[in-house]
């Protein structure tokens, strides 16, 4: 339900980053924005994509692709002494030894990894 405010914040951050680029990149158009979203970030990727079109309208991001990488939950298992990837989010037990795990190493990420721009060639 809060996906629109999340993509609006993405658009805002990328627009700011774009403005901070050196002069040679002035006027660049954004082609793609890449996000990393944890499986426990409580956002719906389809909804992010849907809202993205609306939120990017009239900005340098208009028409760009939103690419979302979903990251599985990784917990630290004490008895096994290692980080383990969970198969889902229905049980927070180590898939190797079956013990419950409470220390999360990955799964709540909600971040902009990068964006791709096309640079307008200087014409003489």
């Amino acid at each position, binding site marked *: *339900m809060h996906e629109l405010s999340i993509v609006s914040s993405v658009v805002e951050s990328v627009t700011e980053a774009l403005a901070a*680029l050196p002069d040679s990149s002035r006027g660049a158009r954004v082609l793609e924005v890449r996000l990393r979203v944890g499986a*426990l970030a409580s956002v719906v990727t389809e909804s992010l994509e849907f809202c993205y079109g609306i939120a990017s309208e009239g900005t340098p991001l208009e028409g760009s692709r939103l690419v979302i990488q979903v990251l599985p939950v990784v917990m630290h298992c004490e008895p096994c002494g290692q980080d383990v990837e969970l198969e889902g989010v229905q049980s927070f*037990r180590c898939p190797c030894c079956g013990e419950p795990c409470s220390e999360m190493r990955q799964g709540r990420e909600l*971040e902009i990894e990068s*964006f791709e721009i*096309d640079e307008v060639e200087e014409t003489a």
Partner: protein
Amino acid sequence: MTTRIVELRRGILKKNDELAAGLRASYATAGVLVLNLVSSPGTGKTAFLEWTLRELKARGSRVAALVGDLETDNDARRLAASGAPVRQINTHGICHLDAEMIGKHLDGWDGVTLGGLDYLFIENVGNLVCPSSYDLGEKIRVALLSVTEGEDKPLKYPTLFNSADAAVITKMDIAEPCGFDRETALTNINEIRPGIRIFETSAKTGAGMEEWFGYLAEQRANPRA
């Protein structure tokens, strides 16, 4: 045309996270224990909080509450009957509270300063999804679940239950007529958040509330963040 990739590596909710970190620091400096109560609409957050505020106040603790709803100040008026200072936050359509709303409502709150409080309770907007993404700087996030909602609620909403520090089961007084399967509910909560403290309460009879107050006192005495 040449294309280029610009690395950003920036948290999307960075602004909220930064504001929340600032709030957390000011709560710690003031020595106030801040709790964020999250549940579905209708779980009984307000009734649970009414009992909590009234009792803590009667026992000499300095308590206050911020309460979030889309519209109306009904909950603030209910909670204010406890005699504790209460301030309503109306989000006008937004499905969660964020750190900025908390900061704004702490400013200029008549007669209330963080330093003058032992406990500050934040009752979030009734929603089991979105509030889990927004840190309010709280020390303890409490997930509430009523006996009428079904024992599998933690499995359906793992994000919220996994991010909670304590779980409260409400309306235990009607557990039996609702056919509430206590064992299954406890198992499910533990599957999603192993080892979490669970309180089985009723805001009608006061069941489980002493245990809850014991936990609050313990948490206040424990300076570890």
